[in-house]
């Protein structure tokens, strides 16, 4: 029986469970003996001119190796992009947490002592703490620009979306709040310059992209840089490549000649690592009173934070995916990307797609409430039917495959939706204090949308063991287990004889790495293709050795042997063939470039209880279909769904990065930022569904982010549904007790 699609427990676990992983700060390598600890001096003020930096007191403290500022760095080229992001701030800071100086110390604890002694003179400027203030343009972040809007774009009918023929048209502006990714391991790096080469250990999702970014920033030949990823304690998009803080650490190693190591504190992480989401969205939805949605448009203002690292790109994804799962006559979307005096925005689990789903799934419920129809029924009427795929949406995305209505029906059946509606009606009639809300989302998202391809190398040695070098870069996903399954299936070499190597640019020079739920469909396919080439190499050699025609040979994948068809006595082992082949004789590289992205989809039903006296919403059940095509290992796929769902629920109910009007962060510790805990979640009810894609030979789509895309709108819709009979039509995320309570009371007052 093939191992594909079976429940295989992880090969990664034994090490992690007994000795713990080796994360960057755990490294005890000879190259890092005596490494100096780097502490980053960060701006405590949102917007200011730097009028002076005095490092003398810090430099005199015992144990201080060096204090470095932008003055120690090569000056940026004249006449460059006025909005470009520096490495260390030179004459101006634009967000609290922006790196201003580095302190290198012999001891770990000396770093913070010394950092406190670095004296920076700031001349405060008016702060732009959010989207509203950015749009007024009264204060500009970048001298020489005319506005804080750095990019704009449209999709579909854009500004001219037609609402002709609609009985009902609704328009509403909603918040998709700023979130902190909070990987449990903060950012970390170690670096050693050994005279002619820079070796970097980095907690990154993409060692090869990190190498390129560091080479570019430091003006080094990429061949002079080796990036290694030790174990990585979560990334969620926020550890794509490297950011300026980490590049500064690499620069410090080269500049001083000292080996260095750096791990940020959580308080630094919550202001220094990128944030996600941060959109103001205005939707307009129109349709007929019998439930047909004819037109939809979405206008986004994307807060990029202080620099446009990825903000405009995320907004582009949002407008591309704006039309969701619906077959619309008219649709359009637009975005404006603005800069503010806040931490820069970049990818966080979903990265642009949860924002699109949150808007249209909220709009659909809003429309359903307006026309008095069950939101499940509105979705049944309007989702793209299966016979229309491949389907190009009103906002220009071409979906590969989808069974949207079937996904919805599976979830409704698994949850017993009619019984839940009956229970809701009973509580409403009884005017119970604790009301029940049901929230639905039917979603689609885009994965492997970057079109960068991925690499793999498979080698079989004369012991019959295989080694897989993969361009994908795991940080919890279980790639080592998954890739070994693929090779066992292809070559018949047992998983326990397969080693997977990732995250070393010397061993794997060309790769993209892991983001955008791309790994199995691109990296996994490359592994299968490399193994396929090795198989043909082995076939030719085995034919020579057995003196048989290649066409008469077969690989017995159950036993891992080659033989003349039907003649087990002729069997040759992988080891025997590899011995004949010589060193690297059985080895192949592959690079898989997909012809198009893939579009996972699904349906979520959230069941929420709302205490109408306190406003507290509690998620009591969460039932989902998350269809990511063919599943390689349900254990891993379910794990990805669980984690994704939880992060989506967190956005709906709890988490939000907040700033005061002066741009001071109010959520810079885990006491203030409400990272979701075990007590705030139920166990999830997962319904299986596999609709293969033709885009890659595995039939696989990405599963890493789907749960997040689906759960946020379902949970928010459920909270609002719980109190809709009281007159509440919308609550912005996160639906905290304070906001829910206020919404209930405002609705009562309005009546």
């Amino acid at each position, binding site marked *: 029986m093939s191992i594909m699609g079976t429940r295989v427990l992880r090969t990664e676990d034994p090490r992690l469970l*007994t000795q713990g992983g080796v994360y960057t700060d*755990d490294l005890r390598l000879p190259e890092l003996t005596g490494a100096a600890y780097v502490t980053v001096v960060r701006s405590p003020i949102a917007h200011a001119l730097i009028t002076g930096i005095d490092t003398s007191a810090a430099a005199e403290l015992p144990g201080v190796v060096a204090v470095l500022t932008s003055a120690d760095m090569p000056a940026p080229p004249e006449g460059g992009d006025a909005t470009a992001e520096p490495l260390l701030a030179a004459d101006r800071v634009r967000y609290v947490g922006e790196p201003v100086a580095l302190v290198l110390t012999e001891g770990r604890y000396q770093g913070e002592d010394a950092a406190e002694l670095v004296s920076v003179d700031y001349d405060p400027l008016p702060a732009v703490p959010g989207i509203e203030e950015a749009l007024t343009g009264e204060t500009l972040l970048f001298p020489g620009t005319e506005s804080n809007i750095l990019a704009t774009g449209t999709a579909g009918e854009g500004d001219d979306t037609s609402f002709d023929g609609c009985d009902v048209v609704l328009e509403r502006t909603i918040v998709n709040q700023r979130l902190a990714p909070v990987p*449990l391991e903060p950012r970390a790096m170690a670096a050693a310059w050994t005279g002619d080469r820079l070796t970097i250990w980095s907690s990154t999702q993409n060692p090869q992209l990190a190498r390129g970014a560091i080479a570019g920033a430091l003006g080094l030949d990429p061949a002079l840089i080796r990036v290694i990823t030790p174990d990585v304690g979560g990334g969620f998009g926020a550890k794509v490549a490297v950011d300026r803080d980490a590049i500064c650490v690499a620069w410090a190693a080269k500049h001083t000649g000292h080996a260095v190591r750096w791990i940020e504190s959580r308080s630094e992480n919550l202001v220094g690592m990128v944030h996600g989401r941060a959109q103001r969205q205005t939707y307009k939805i129109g349709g007929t009173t019998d439930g047909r949605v004819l037109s939809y448009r979405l206008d986004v203002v994307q807060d990029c934070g202080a620099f446009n690292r990825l903000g405009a790109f995320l907004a582009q994804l949002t407008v591309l995916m704006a039309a969701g799962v619906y077959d619309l006559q008219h649709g359009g979307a637009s975005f404006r990307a603005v800069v503010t005096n806040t931490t820069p925005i970049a990818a966080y689990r979903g990265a642009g797609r949860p924002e699109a789903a949150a808007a249209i799934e909220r709009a659909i419920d809003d429309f359903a409430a307006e026309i008095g129809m069950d939101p499940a029924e509105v979705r049944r009427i309007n989702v793209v039917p299966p016979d229309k795929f491949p389907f190009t949406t009103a906002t220009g995305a071409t979906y590969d495959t989808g069974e949207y209505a079937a996904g919805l029906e599976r979830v409704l059946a698994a949850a017993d939706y009619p019984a839940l509606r009956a229970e809701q009606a009973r509580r409403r009639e009884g005017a119970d204090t604790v009301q029940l809300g049901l929230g639905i989302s039917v979603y689609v998202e885009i994965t492997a949308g970057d079109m960068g391809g991925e690499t793999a190398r498979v080698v079989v040695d004369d012991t019959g063991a295989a080694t897989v070098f993969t361009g994908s870069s795991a940080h*919890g996903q279980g790639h080592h287990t998954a890739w070994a399954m693929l090779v066992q299936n292809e070559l018949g070499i047992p998983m326990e004889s397969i080693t997977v190597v990732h995250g070393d640019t010397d061993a794997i020079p060309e790769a993209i790495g892991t983001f955008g739920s791309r790994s199995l469909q691109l990296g996994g396919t490359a592994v299968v293709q490399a193994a396929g080439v090795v198989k043909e190499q082995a076939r030719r050699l085995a034919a020579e050795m057995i003196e048989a025609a290649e066409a008469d040979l077969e690989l017995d994948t159950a036993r891992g042997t080659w033989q003349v068809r039907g003649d087990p006595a002729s069997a040759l082992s992988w080891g025997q063939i590899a011995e004949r082949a010589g060193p690297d004789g059985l080895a192949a590289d592959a690079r898989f470039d997909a012809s198009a992205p893939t579009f996972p989809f699904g349906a979520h039903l959230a069941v929420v209880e709302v205490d109408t006296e306190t406003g507290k919403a509690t998620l009591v059940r969460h039932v989902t279909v998350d269809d990511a095509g063919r599943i390689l290992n349900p254990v891993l796929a379910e794990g990805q769904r*669980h984690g994704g769902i*939880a992060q989506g629920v967190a956005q709906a109910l709890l988490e939000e990065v907040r700033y005061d009007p002066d741009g001071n962060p109010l959520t810079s510790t885990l006491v203030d930022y409400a990272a979701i805990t*075990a007590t705030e979640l139920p166990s999830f009810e997962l319904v299986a569904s596999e609709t293969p894609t033709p885009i890659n030979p595995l039939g696989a789509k990405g599963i890493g982010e789907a749960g997040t895309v689906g759960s946020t709108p379902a949970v928010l819709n459920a909270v609002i549904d719980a109190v809709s009979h009281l007159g509440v039509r919308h609550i912005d995320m996160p639906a905290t007790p304070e906001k829910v309570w206020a919404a209930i009371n405002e609705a009562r007052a309005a009546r």
Partner: protein
Amino acid sequence: MKVAISVNGRQVEAEVEDRLLLAHFVREQAGLTATNIGCDTTSCGACTVLLDGESVKSCTVLAAQADGHEVTTCEGLAGADGRWHAVQQGFHAEHGLQCGFCTPGMMMAAVSLLAENPDPTEEEVRTGLEGNLCRCTGYHNIVRAVLAAARDGQPAAEAS
């Protein structure tokens, strides 16, 4: 100051700064790096160890306070014969870990929880682990892992 702390049954003596945290003592002086540090406000629980058999967040205990006491970390969970603790077996069988960073602390919190309540309900497990954050698993399989450990590390009958 000089401290002597038993870590996983091994006596570790060192001259340390008064302000040294137990978490750093375990990682630097004892050389055991499974215990991770994920925050600076005693919020995340990644650094949870057992101090005289009870779970503590080792980022909020000074090494000096542990002087003369016994500390157990993730590395000390398995038996001398290498046989895994029921909690380790449960985490493996139920896929209760992904990136692994929270896992040592989460397992030590679970060991302490099960010592106090050997047969917890799902809700009791969730409440007992409230002080330990995980960003990967959504806690779903961690809860199952702890329940499985309570049943001697046997996986649950139905998988979902």
